[in-house]
């Protein structure tokens, strides 16, 4: 927390920006950009909105570096949970390629 008093007009400006971004993201949802691009657009706008709330409504812009580190740390570990879990879920059906010595075994097997 800081003793810095965020000016009223900053709050109002951020509020207007958030309203605009909400309208934007809702509008874009009705336009077909392809499933991936629509998802990326929606998430990007969400991240921008979240950043506005964090930096200005939650005063993080005026907070000590420790606060910023704590927030980044939290999201980082969440990202680890999601990334490593997806690394399993999405590669479950990949088959390992057989190379090298292990190729010998079916070869020998078929010969003898």
């Amino acid at each position, binding site marked *: 927390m800081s003793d810095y008093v965020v000016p009223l007009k900053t709050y109002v400006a951020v509020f207007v920006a958030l309203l605009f971004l909400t309208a934007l993201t809702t509008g874009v949802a009705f336009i077909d950009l392809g499933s991936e691009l629509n998802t990326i657009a929606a998430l990007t706008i969400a991240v921008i909105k979240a950043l506005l709330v964090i930096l200005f409504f939650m005063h993080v812009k005026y907070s000590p570096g420790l606060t910023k580190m704590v927030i980044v740390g939290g999201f980082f570990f969440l990202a680890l*949970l999601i990334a490593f879990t997806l690394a*399993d879920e999405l590669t479950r059906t990949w088959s390992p390629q057989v190379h090298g010595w292990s190729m010998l075994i079916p070869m020998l097997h078929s010969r003898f």
Partner: protein
Amino acid sequence: MSTTVIAEIPGHELPSESRVNYLNVDHSVKSWLLTHDHKRIALLYLISITLMFFVGGFFAVLMRLNLIEPTGLVAPETYNKLFSMHGIIMVFFFLVPSIPATLGNFLVPMMIGARDLAFPRINLLSWYIYIIGAAFTMYAVISGGVDTGWTFYTPYSSTFSHSQVIPAAVGVFITGFSSILTGLNFVVTIHKMRAPGLTWFRLPLFIWSMYATSVIFILGTPVIAITLFLLGLERLLHIGIFDPAIGGDPILFQHMFWFYSHPAVYIMILPGMGVMSELITAFSRKRIFGYTFVAFSSLAIAVISFLVWGHHMFVTGQSVYAGLIFSVLSFLVAIPSAIKVFNWTATLYKGSISYEAPMLYALGFIGLFTMGGLTGLFLASLATDVHLNGTYFIVAHFHYIMVGGAVMAYLGGLHFWWPKITGRLYPDGWARFAALVIFVGFNLTFFPQFVLGYLGMPRRYAVYPAEFQVLNVMSSAGASILGVGYVIPLIYFIWSFKYGPIAGPNPWGAKGLEWTTPSPPPTENFEEIPIVTEQAYNYAGTSESAHG
């Protein structure tokens, strides 16, 4: 550590009864149950945690009795409940809170020169939350028990088990918040309330470990909370995100479960490592070798511990590629632990070593933790884990770390700080005897289990092939010796409250701010907040005096 308090002159201390301290300042029950004093809360935890330890131990006794006979003594369904209750109680209600909630609560403010933790009322709340969680779990025990294993794997736990899954899951969920609040309190306190001059690199290594442990509390516990919450919902609603009928993946449950539960094992060992640094330095009268390495390795363990959870899932059908990544990372996490063992051993070298009970526990820890850690490498290696998973090798591995490591460190710490906490000395002869009984009993119990696992005996089975009986009987015999070893300190600690010799402020001649206060300390810890100008463990006459 230098301090502005005038030290008490040895031999002229006031007997503790005639001086007001945190124990005698108010004797009413209300003053204990509504206390804000971190030291009293530590004692409240000590009593509850000791109780839960013996409850969990009771289930272990029943298990080892069953395993004397290859055909077992109880029905398999009952045995399933025994190992589940043993695991749930020992993990969540003993090991996870043990050192942090007792020694941590008592010592963190004292070691950093503060009057209390940052949030004393939240500290008290965390104890009540622990009690409520324990009550739910005890209800689950007495109303039929849980048979899913402490791991609560779906879909058995969500759909097929007829045991008291929901009360047990609710109990663990609630107690998780106790850990979260403790971790939160420690992190804020250590960041914001250190005494003047107490920079990060002058902190006792116990504080570094408590800090690293708290980071894991904060980041990991909420994930098991949501996982158990979802499990409970699914059991209640008969539909949920782990339900295979609508595409649910049981392995997703395991990912979410182990994301916490692997770091949880570091929650269970890091505080013990912190105690180790304090014991080894005090009883070698020497500065720790490689302070910075030990401090950073605590943080490294905390961070890397979040990257390895899949090694619990090598044989579940997890992707081979994910398994490869988790295997490599699991080797990495062994490195900081090894660094600590090397540093403690180097600290002993040319130290002025004495063999009081705390040091016996510390020396035991070094040997047993090393064995447990090395056997972990067999399990980190994907190829060997395929054979060893689900066998007694795993059981032996984690008991070497948790019992040979964590519990011995906990006992060593209790013995070391007992004079400070109670103002009394315990009988050192009995204490050393008990330490040896525990060491012998422990090895007799768990070393045969390495052999059994290697030979292929599965874990969580009520019966086993007859050729394994000799080793099982050895293990059960060892368990009875171990049990005796645990009861002896219970007796003399309670005895010492009334009959133990009065302890001075620093019976061990140890360094640390906590030893500059009277034993037991006054409620506000320090008359004046000390100003710190020295490094930690500033024992005289060492070759390390030029650098920390």
